[in-house]
């Protein structure tokens, strides 16, 4: 494969990834601010964003650290939130699976909501791409998303120290998550999964250390899968 087509795939990816900067920037900054509010040092906050590189899981961990949940519960709950990454990994494997192991490792590290969603959309729209072109495109999409995730976390962490505890800041995290829920409810099965999960979460909220989250998450997944089969939903 010519290097030229890989380069053009890369730049096409950069262009398609650019709009996500508008979401990633404020979200990363919010993490930086909230982490600082929770008492994390700047290097610890950066550690989260570079080592974990997963918005929702980072916010979950932060919330539970604030509640003084045991370390194991923090880890298990945040990983439960990240379980969807396994689905992304499964879904992108037919496209990037033939790559050498180290390139698959790089793709895995940068596999986040936005890079996954944009890449899979492109692979389905332009199915004639070579594996190298697909990988170049993925790296292109990643470029305006992942490095800014680190940068804006840093800005939030540094600026956060100068932001006084303000009205309703405790509620920024639920708002950020809730904003993501609406667009996820694409089919009746998705709506049933979400509804079941909410009801279970409220019913099992009495369980210690947010274990209700795991019960509700699993229950919601089962409800969604059942609904998909019974309603014969095509995805």
């Amino acid at each position, binding site marked *: 494969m010519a290097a030229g087509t890989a380069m053009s795939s890369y730049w096409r990816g950069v262009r398609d990834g650019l709009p996500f900067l508008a979401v990633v920037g404020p979200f990363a900054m919010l993490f930086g601010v909230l982490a600082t509010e929770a008492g994390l040092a700047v290097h610890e906050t950066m550690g989260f964003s570079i080592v974990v590189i997963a918005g929702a899981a980072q916010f979950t961990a932060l919330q539970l650290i604030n509640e003084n949940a045991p370390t194991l519960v923090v880890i298990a709950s945040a990983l439960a939130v990240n379980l969807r990454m396994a689905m992304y990994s499964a879904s992108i494997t037919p496209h990037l699976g033939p790559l050498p192991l180290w390139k698959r490792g790089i793709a895995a590290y940068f596999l986040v909501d936005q890079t996954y969603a944009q890449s899979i959309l492109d692979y389905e729209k332009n199915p004639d791409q070579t594996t190298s072109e697909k990988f170049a495109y993925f790296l292109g999409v990643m470029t305006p998303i992942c490095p800014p995730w680190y940068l804006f976390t840093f800005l939030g962490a540094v600026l956060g120290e100068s932001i006084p505890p303000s*009205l309703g800041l405790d509620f920024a995290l639920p708002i950020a998550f809730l904003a993501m829920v*609406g*667009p996820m409810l694409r089919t009746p099965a998705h709506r049933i999964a*979400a509804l079941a999960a909410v009801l279970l979460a409220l019913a099992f909220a009495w369980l210690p250390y947010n274990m209700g989250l795991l019960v509700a998450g699993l*229950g919601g997944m089962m409800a969604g899968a059942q609904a998909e089969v019974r309603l014969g939903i095509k995805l």
Partner: protein
Amino acid sequence: MTDTTELWLIIVALGLGSFGLRFAFLGLVGDRAMPEWVLRHLRYTAVAVIPALVAPLVLWPTATGGEPDATRLAAAAATFAVGYLTKNVFAAMGVGATVLVSLSLLL
């Protein structure tokens, strides 16, 4: 507050765990097919876990000592409604934040 050692333990474990989840199929499954029932459950992970995480925080906010709070309920409802109707995460966050801040100042 969790101490420094525990914090780094959390960061490293989450990093390894998240990478493991992302690498699981890409790295180890390769081109082999997965059972349909596994995929079917994985499809609903995000849409189940995230609402389950948020629901108790909305109804029983920590900041009010677990008492339902009109300002936070209104902000949550506005965020969800805008996200659902426009499918735009950023617009939903903006409207939710605006409702939250303006009601906090008014009430």
